Each structure stands twice: as C-alpha cells, then as structure tokens.
C-alpha cells in the first residue's frame, strides 16, 4: 500500500549472553499505515520493548529489514540516521528515570530541538517550548520546575512534549501509561488520541495492558517470547482470537463488572527462557493442545482469515476453519 509508513520484515534481534544467544525478537513482520496505531501486546520479557528499540534503530537488528517511507533503513547511513531520528521519536515507560533530574522542564523540552538544530536562537526556542507545554497540557508556571517536583502524570507530559518537539511522524510509545494511576492514565490516553487526530501521527503502542491497547489501537500484534503469534485488526482480535495464547490472555483479564459470566482459561506454567530456545513453538510448554509437531517445528505466520495472521500449527483444527 502506498501510504505505508513503516514496514518490518522478518526482524530478528539476538543478544549475546554468557549462556548463549538470547532470542529477544524473532521473525516479526508488520506494516503500519500513516495515521494509524499498532498496538504491541505481550507479557514481560516477550520482546515488545526490544522491538520498539530496534525499529527506532537504537539497537541494531540481527536479521531482517526495516523500511521507513519505502526506504530501507535497516543499516542506515549517517544521513538516513538523521532523518530517522527526526521522524521517529519515542515516549518511554518510566517518567521517573527517563528525565535528567538536573534539567528544568523548559530545558528538557528544548533539548531535542537544540540537538536537531530545529530552532534558531533563544527566543524561538522559548516560544516553541511554551507552545509545546500548552499542547501537552502543562501549565507554564512549571517551566522552571525540576522533574522531582512533579508527579508521574506531569512527568509523562514532559516526555510527550520532548517527543513532539522535533515534529516526528511516527512515535514509539513504550508503556507510556503503565506507571500511572488510572485517573491520570485516562488523561494521558486522551491526550495521545487528540494529538493523533490533530497531527496525523502514527503510533506504535507497546503495552501489557489489553484494555488500554484495545482502546487506543487500530491493529494489534500479539507477541510471545519474541515471536509474533497473532496480528489483526483490533475489534477482530477481541471478537475472534485464533491463537491459544491470545485466547488465554484475553480470558485472564479481570473485567470490572459483576454481570460478566465467562469461562476462564487458566494457563498453567510460566514463560520459558528465551536463551537458546527449543526448536518448536515457543508456547508449546504452556499450550493445552500442543503435540509432537508443536514441540519440534516452529510454526510460521500464516494469513488464516483475510487480514488475520496467526502462527500456530493447529489453528485451523482448533477453530474449525
């Protein structure tokens, strides 16, 4: 499609550890269209943050390719790097550790603009900082406050203002609301949605919270131990999950209503180690349907239904397709 902003093909990222290769991301494929949000969901250690870091080129990928606006940026040249870092920005998970404690709010927001040489002169920078503070809903009286004086919600607003300051087209949001209380979380989610509508931003939204991801995403990618297990449109995923892991994950969310009656699929066991993983399906050890083939052969991602991708040997049998 012509308006595809980012495309990732067979992306792999391994880390060397003393015990062997840690397969953090393995063969992930997706594309994001301009102005849309791709939600990336999974439990801790499934490689969702690594995926974000690799897409942003903060870590170099081990295999596969990344295309930004149709251009191959897997191993970017210096000139390409400049473009990428200006067009792709990131909002970090922890607003407590991602801000320099010795810089005040206005310096923090001005920093990326100075580095990228976007504004000329002090006056223009100051004006841009004031505009950005208005955009993200930070009162101007906080311009000279330090991060430790502010609460989590306001700090996260600084993080968003920093990301916006270079006018990116694509923002990787790495668990931007997980450290916040629900009432503040809702404020930040609304802000991110407003910004997307106003500026046509494209998001990759990484989270472990399924209700948040459902609220904000157009498409969802479910990951398990570095592998992509399912990918489809948001509504479709919640209506017809195909992969046994997705089904278990969805049924594990406690619903805040006393009128929901549903059967919970409690998954036994825990996530296995990503270091030198066994050859079969990563989920086989916890999957109630796993057989010999699942334990010996890694399933490939297939388009099971139109626009609905799933990596499971038994998906057709289990869903009677």
């Amino acid at each position, binding site marked *: 499609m012509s308006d595809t902003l980012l495309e990732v093909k067979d992306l792999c990222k391994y880390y060397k550890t003393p015990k062997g290769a840690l397969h953090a991301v393995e063969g992930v494929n997706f594309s994001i269209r301009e102005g849309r949000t791709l939600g990336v969901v999974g439990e801790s250690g499934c490689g969702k943050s690594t995926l974000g870091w690799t897409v942003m080129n903060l870590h170099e990928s081990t295999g596969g390719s990344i295309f930004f606006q149709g251009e191959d940026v897997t191993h970017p040249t210096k000139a390409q790097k400049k473009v990428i870092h200006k067009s792709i920005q990131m909002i970090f998970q922890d607003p407590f550790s991602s801000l320099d404690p010795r810089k005040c709010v206005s310096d923090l927001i001005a920093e990326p603009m100075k580095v990228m040489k976007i504004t000329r002169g002090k006056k223009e920078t100051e004006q841009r900082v004031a505009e950005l503070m208005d955009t993200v809903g930070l009162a101007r009286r906080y311009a000279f406050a330090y991060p430790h004086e502010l609460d989590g919600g306001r700090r996260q607003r600084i993080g968003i203002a920093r990301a916006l300051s270079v006018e990116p087209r694509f923002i990787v949001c790495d668990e931007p609301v997980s450290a916040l209380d629900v*009432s*503040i979380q*809702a404020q930040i*989610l609304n802000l991110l949605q407003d910004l997307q509508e106003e500026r046509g931003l494209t998001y990759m939204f990484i989270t472990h919270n399924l209700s948040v991801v*459902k609220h904000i995403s157009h498409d969802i990618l479910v990951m398990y131990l570095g592998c992509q297990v399912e990918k489809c449109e948001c509504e479709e995923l919640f209506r017809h999950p195909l992969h046994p892991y997705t089904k*278990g994950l969805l049924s594990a969310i406690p619903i805040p209503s006393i009128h929901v009656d549903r059967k919970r699929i409690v998954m*036994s066991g825990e*996530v296995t180690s990503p270091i030198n993983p066994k050859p079969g399906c990563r989920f086989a050890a916890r999957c109630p349907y796993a057989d010999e083939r699942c334990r010996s052969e890694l399933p490939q991602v297939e388009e099971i239904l139109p626009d609905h991708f799933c990596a499971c040997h038994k998906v057709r049998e289990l869903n009677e397709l």
Partner: protein
Amino acid sequence: MSLLEIKDLTIHFPTEEGDVRAVNGISLSVEEGKTLGLVGETGAGKTTTALGILRLVPEPGEIENGSIVYKGKDILSMQEKEVQDIRGNEISMIFQDPMTALNPVMTVGDQVAEVILRHQNCSKTEAQKRMVDILAKVGIGADRAGDYPHQFSGGMKQRVVIATALACNPKLLLADEPTTALDVTIQAQVMEMINELKAEFQTSMILITHDLGIVAESCDSVAIMYAGQIVEYGSLEDIFDHTTHPYTIGLFGSIPSLEKKVHRLQPISGLMPDPVNLPTGCCFHPRCPYADERCAQEAPAAAEVSPGHLCRCHYWETVRGKEAEDNV
C-alpha cells in the same frame, strides 16, 4: 459479630513540612470468611491502613485515634507481646512486591518454616513437614524448598510470600496488591489460588488493589478510598451497579472497557491532593464536577444511601439522579 471492626482510625506522619494525613477517620468491618476490597489510587492510604491493623506503621507515623477491634479485643491497646503473637499468626499480610518482601540470604523453605516455628508450638522436624505441605499447596515442589529467592521468577516468589502468609492458617489475610507486580496470566493463576485457599481455610481477607476488575471477581464488599477517607462503602452490587460517589464514577469512567467501544475516556480532572495540605471541606471538591460552595467549606458526613451502602457526598441524591438519566 464481625471478625474485625475498625472505627475512626486516624494515622498521621508528623514531618518537618507538616502532618502527612495518610488515614483520616476510616471505619470498616470484615465479616468471617468474607473479602473486603479496599480500592484507591496511589497515596489514598490503603497500605497505611493495613499496616495500622498490624501495628506496623513505620516511623514517624502515629496512630492518633480510633480503635481496631479484632475478635472483641482492641489491637491498639494490646501489649506489644500480644500483638506479636497475632501478627503472622492470626492476621498475616501478603506484601505487594515479592522481589523485596523475601530475605535474599535465606532459603525459601527456611523463611516459611521460620513463621511456623515462631507461632506454632512444634519441633523443627514438624515445622519442616508443615513447610513442605504449605509449599505444595501453593504449587511449589519440596525439591525447591532449598532454593534462594533469586532462583525464582516473580510469580513463584509471590507464591512463596503467600505460603509464608498462610503458614499458620490465619483468620484474617491482608493482601496488599498481591498481583500488581505480575503479568496477567500469572495474576489469574495467583488470584485463583488465593481464592481457593481462602475458601479451604475459611479465611477472611482485606484485598487492597487499584484494579476494579479484580474486585469484581474476588470481593464481597468494597470500600473506595480517597485522600485517607472512605468515600463510598457497600456491597459489590452497591458499588458496581448503584455507583453513587462522583469519585467512584470517575474511576469507572477512567478504565478503558473491553466490552463497549468508547471513543474518549471520561477521566477525573486534576490530581490527587497533597496529604500535607488537604483541601478544606470535602477532599474531592477541587476535582468534582458537582462541587459548589458548600463542598469547599463543609466536610460531608457518610450518608446512608441504602442499608449498608454509605457515601460521603453532600449531593449524592443529585449525582444519583444524573447518573440514572445518563444511563437511559
């Protein structure tokens, strides 16, 4: 008679900047075999309340007022020795963060056995035997009893913490966000286990959480806390189906729903107040859409909306009517 009855509990922390008013006159009761959900955001005073029940409020905190009556005796007027015999024995606590609640230089088996040796009059061999039993109950095999906490994953550590809490068959369990640090699938396993063990031992529980989903699944009654006060208190049905306090309504509006598609969330505007400098009148008035002059001056008393359903709001009838209108 209730197993535990708290009346007007007030806990303050005097500091150089002024009194941190963490808990301001809360009253609640826990019935035998039932679960009470204590819900609120960071800084609402949930954990301080639980620590108050065990008389473990850290320095410089002081319990200024109130009574905590357990089985007819006031914990606050007991001798330290008496409290020690109850703590970890009849009333025990599951701590929030399993990573820091365990002793890193002691095997998990010894940590569980320690509680049994302290409280149950038994020999070392007997304690070992019971330790193995209780670990098996939470799904940890005897072969792992000699391992240290760092050899366990987060979910397994939380199981050890739960085993320690359940080691002496407590009558009352204080579970402080027992699953917040865990992934959803592990959370489901742990909650199911807690509920099974609770049913087996007829234990009462105070479940502290900020997740209304967990409350809906595990609790019998609910207390919603805000700025050290209980703003709404009632049965599960009262709180979920007949929500009355504007703060509770705001909490529900903030959660993205899995069932309905809403385009925008309805968050509560503003921030939690500073406990050193609480607002006058009703603590929630600066953030409340219904607030007026009266709310800023006069603190509302708990009004009885229906039998057993209490709400601290001057205008609960108006709020109620408005909500009913919106739902039509």
